[in-house]
């Protein structure tokens, strides 16, 4: 659809934002791989070294995304906050359900800690991606 006739002033306002969405999606991808690794060994104990490395890499990406996000100026923070809090609620419920299933399946000790931290990354990375994608196109002054 290259034949858009939007007025000049309303052309795509896509500032050169840092790759926050890619970083948070990367964190999500890494914890998904870690989750697959742990699940593929269940009910046996999975090798925790690789899963821990994946978690650390995911945490690093998430922290980098948060750091870059915090430095943004002229950004639609009101829109970001609105979307983030509701998405966080939804994915906290989803993460809680997954955590419940693991606890119910007698996952304990270091495996449970790893799963819990992966779910925290999951529950934070998805809302960051959704809220950032929404807010980057929103009006910085008045939100959406």
């Amino acid at each position: 659809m290259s034949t858009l006739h939007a007025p000049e002033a309303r052309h795509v306002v896509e500032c050169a934002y840092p790759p926050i969405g890619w970083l948070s999606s990367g964190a999500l991808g890494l914890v998904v791989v870690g989750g697959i690794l742990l699940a593929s060994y269940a009910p046996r104990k999975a090798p925790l070294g690789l899963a821990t490395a994946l978690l650390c890499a995911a945490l690093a990406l998430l922290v980098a995304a948060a750091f870059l996000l915090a430095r943004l100026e002229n950004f639609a923070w009101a829109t970001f906050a609105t979307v983030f809090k509701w998405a966080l609620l939804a994915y906290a419920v989803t993460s809680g359900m997954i955590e419940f299933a693991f606890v119910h399946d007698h996952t304990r000790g270091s495996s449970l800690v790893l799963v819990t931290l992966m779910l925290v990354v999951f529950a934070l990375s998805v809302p960051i991606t959704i809220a950032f994608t929404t807010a980057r196109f929103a009006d910085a002054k008045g939100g959406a």
Partner: protein
Amino acid sequence: MSDDAMVVNAPTQQGPPRERTKIQVVPLAGLPVVAMAVIFVALSIGFNWQWGLMFNHVVGGGLWTGIDLFVGLVIGPILGRLSIPARAEFSARFMPMMVIIMPTVVMMTLATGFQVARSLGNLSASSPNHAWLVVSFCVVGIMATTALGVLEPANIAVLYEMNKPVPNGEVIHRLMQRFVYTAGILGVMQVATLIIMTRLGSR
């Protein structure tokens, strides 16, 4: 979706915006159904309720696969050929429903699927189905990352853009393209899911 969640004018219209009603990004009327699904899944897992686990997994999985295939391979290509005003009008009615339906059916399917696999012994490394199960984890992992990292953010961003007094047609177009392409990828991955699940069920 509620009746007030409509957008009727084109996002690329010239001149002053016409009167529009705001899109309800999350259809609140659907939330009690979501809450019931969450409670049903939690009870099924908590009490090892075999029928409940199987019901949630089969119904959730069937809906997930069916909707993904239909959207990715039927609705998506049609949507891609529509004019932007028509696409916007369709999306204004369609996307809020997807916001509430898809996470619910995915949660029903995945949370109970693991329990079903455990109770059937498919998680055991000695099970002949174990390799297929691991492949299904990988397929679901790709779908989850694609859906949560690309499709859902695009979906929400489109709805927010449409709620602006004067939506930007090019932003909507670009975000909708993401939606259409990722829906296509998910449709193809769902074909793989169908093969794996029917294979598992027939062994």
